């Protein structure tokens, strides 16, 4: 199925958000995630099932004012 990750479409075989992050190589990176505009805490990623067309945001610390 296709999912939209940080604005770019990609194919995935992952069934949940935790598996998708692993598949994409985020590993132990400090990131926060949102699925279809809703925050998904790190502990809830394995329970967040993915469906075709889902939008995922993966955010990390960045410079800010």
């Amino acid at each position, binding site marked *: 199925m296709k999912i939209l990750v*940080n*604005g770019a479409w990609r194919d995935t075989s992952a069934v949940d958000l935790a598996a998708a992050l692993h598949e*994409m*190589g*985020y590993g132990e*990176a*400090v*990131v*926060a*995630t*949102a699925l279809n*505009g*809703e*925050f998904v*805490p*790190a502990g809830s990623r394995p329970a967040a099932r993915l469906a075709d067309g889902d939008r995922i*945001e*993966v*955010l*990390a*610390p*960045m*410079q*800010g*004012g």
Partner: protein
Amino acid sequence: MLQVYGIELRSRLFLGTSRYPSPAVLSEAVKASRAQVVTVSLRRESSGERAGQGFWSIIRELGVRVLPNTAGCHSVKEAVTTAQMAREVFGTSWIKLEVIGEDDTLQPDVFGLVEAARILAADGFEVFPYTTEDLVVADKLLAAGCRVLMPWGAPIGSGRGLNNLFGLKALRAHFPEVPLVIDAGIGVPSHAAQAMELGFDAVLINTAVAQAADPVRMAAAFAQAVEAGWDARLAGPMEPRDLAAPSTPVIGTAFLK
């Protein structure tokens, strides 16, 4: 000492971490500023570049407290979700809440700001709202649960100093017990000193330091200005007057005509 949400801070200068020429200069500027609080943000991270991980390790090494922002958010939902994500990543319930309402001036959408502040405060966040000097909005933000206010001096990144002195003085006078941090628009150290002399509790600087020809030196200059302005406030400035008043005593002046 300045106290915000139960935390005591020696430094009254908050520093932004954006737009520095290099990570090394950012790090040295933070040290030179003696700031104990720096602002940070969240952005999309690609699994390949991992730019955010490097930045985060630099900030952690500095041993400062972080104040994550919701910069770039134009709606209540975006701001609330970003705040939730920031709380997890940065491990703090502090959030500098920005809900932008107008792109040319980056003026806050104060209606969305109050609504987002209410949602976040109820969810346990300690909210630092980026607002205007409007008294009514300030009142509503306090009622929503904010214990600190961050009124703008001038539009973000403009360097124009304190645009509305009358409004800012009124805000200070109206809420004498609320920590007020001037956020945005400060261009040079004299602006920061002026804010402190007027009785504001702290200032948040970013572009004025980051975009200076020598950011590290400018960070140190701002640190001195903030301290000087705060000391001057405590010392009790004289009242200005329209006519001259001789500073040298006139009694006993020689008659030499």
